Each structure stands twice: as structure tokens, then as C-alpha cells.
């Protein structure tokens, strides 16, 4: 998908729909949708820097007891070790830098795989309700 704010909104809406279909409760759906939105913003804004030649790929996969959402950009690669702690006193009043923290807060497991050709972030939430398996992708 294109590196635009419309892509961010579409990703959030898709995440909301799939989380609902997966049997998550209202609060969990909100959390999943927000985590996807934050990851999409990182991909579009910080990864691809709105470059029209660079795309973001989203994969939603329901397997067994998990919803797995993978977001890949084509940016320079995000180094998780260099992300400052937004809760430390010196960062508390900063106007940015909370996206990854919120993603980690809302998902059960988060994997960040940076490379020279972009960043892949995998968001995992355990499904407690009834859920059907399935895959969706948008590129």
C-alpha cells in the first residue's frame, strides 16, 4: 500500500474488522487497532518517509489461538535499541516517541526485525474467544 495517511486509516479499519471477527472484546479491538495504527504510522512516516516509490505491506493471519499482524516498510530500518523510554522523566514531556511503547503495551508479543531494506514488525495477540483461521494481505 502507498505511504500515505489514507493507508494508516485503512490499516486501522482493517485491524478493527479482523479483531472483531476474531472474537476479541471491545477493549481488545481498540487496543489492536491502535497498535496497528501506530505501526502503520511508523512505517509510512518514519520508515518510508511518505516516499511515493516505497510501499507498506500488511498481513493479517489468524492461526490457532493467535492473531498475527505483520507490517513491513521499505525504509532504512528501525533499531529497537535506539528507541528512548518515553516513561523516563527526561522524555515524559517529549512530543513524540510513544508509538512503539503503546504497541508493546497493547499486544501480547511484539517482534521488530530491522534490515537494510526496511523494517518488519510482527504484532501478536492471543485469541481467547472463538475464532476462525484465515489470512489477509494488502500490499
Amino acid at each position: 500500500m502507498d505511504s500515505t495517511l489514507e493507508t494508516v486509516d485503512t490499516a486501522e479499519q482493517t485491524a478493527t474488522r479482523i479483531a472483531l471477527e476474531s472474537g476479541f472484546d471491545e477493549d481488545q479491538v481498540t487496543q489492536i487497532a491502535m497498535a496497528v495504527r501506530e505501526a502503520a504510522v511508523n512505517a509510512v512516516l518514519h520508515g518510508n518517509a511518505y516516499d511515493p516509490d516505497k510501499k507498506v505491506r500488511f498481513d493479517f493471519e489468524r492461526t490457532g489461538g493467535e492473531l498475527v499482524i505483520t507490517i513491513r516498510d521499505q525504509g532504512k530500518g528501525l533499531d529497537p535499541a535506539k528507541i528512548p523510554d518515553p516513561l523516563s522523566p527526561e522524555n515524559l514531556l517529549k512530543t513524540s516517541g510513544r508509538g512503539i511503547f503503546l504497541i508493546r503495551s497493547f499486544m501480547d508479543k511484539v517482534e521488530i526485525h530491522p534490515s537494510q531494506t526496511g523494517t518488519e514488525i510482527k504484532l501478536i495477540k492471543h485469541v481467547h474467544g472463538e475464532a476462525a483461521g484465515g489470512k489477509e494481505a494488502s500490499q
Partner: protein
Amino acid sequence: MTMKASTRQIDGVAIVDCSGRITLGEGSVVLRDTVRDLLSKGQKKILLNLADVNYIDSSGIGELVSAFTTVRNQGGELKLLNLTKKVHDLLQITKLYTVFDVKDEESAAVKAFG
């Protein structure tokens, strides 16, 4: 739904009634422009009524922080009023709930300005 903001005055306090989503893009810009406009008019007591803000993302949180520090740096005060549960919870987990002066009753909030 994008963010909307309308301002009214009570006892020298500008109450900004916000509604919709404060997110990256238009929502954050509306908030930023509203606060800047008030400051440019010399209005330094600002109460953001967030009762109808049903969604805020990390960019929106950043915009609230920016508004808070900008007003404070100009010798003013910015307080928050009527947080929804979602916004309340977000400010809790980001440890900003104690940074902002958060009120849940308008007349008491207005009186709390120095």
C-alpha cells in the same frame, strides 16, 4: 470523524470543546492551531474539554503535551476536562495523567485557574 474544536469564554478562561479524533494529520493540526490562535490573542488560561474525544493516538498525545508546554512556557495554564475512559487510560499508561491537571467538573475547573 475528524476533530472539531469550538471555543467559548467563561470568567476569563477559554474553554475549547473538542470532539472527534485527535490523530496524526488533521486532528492534531486543529488542536495545534486552536491553541496557537488563543495564545496569539493573549488568552493564556485554556481548558480543553475532551468529553467528546473518542480516540487519540500517540501523535495526538504528543500534541496535547506540546500544547501544555507551549502554554506553560508563555506563562499560561492549560488544563484538561472530562476525559473519556480511552483517553484517561492512555494518559495513565504513558504516565502523563499526573503531568496534566485533569478536571471532571467544568465550574470547578474554571475556578482552579490562578
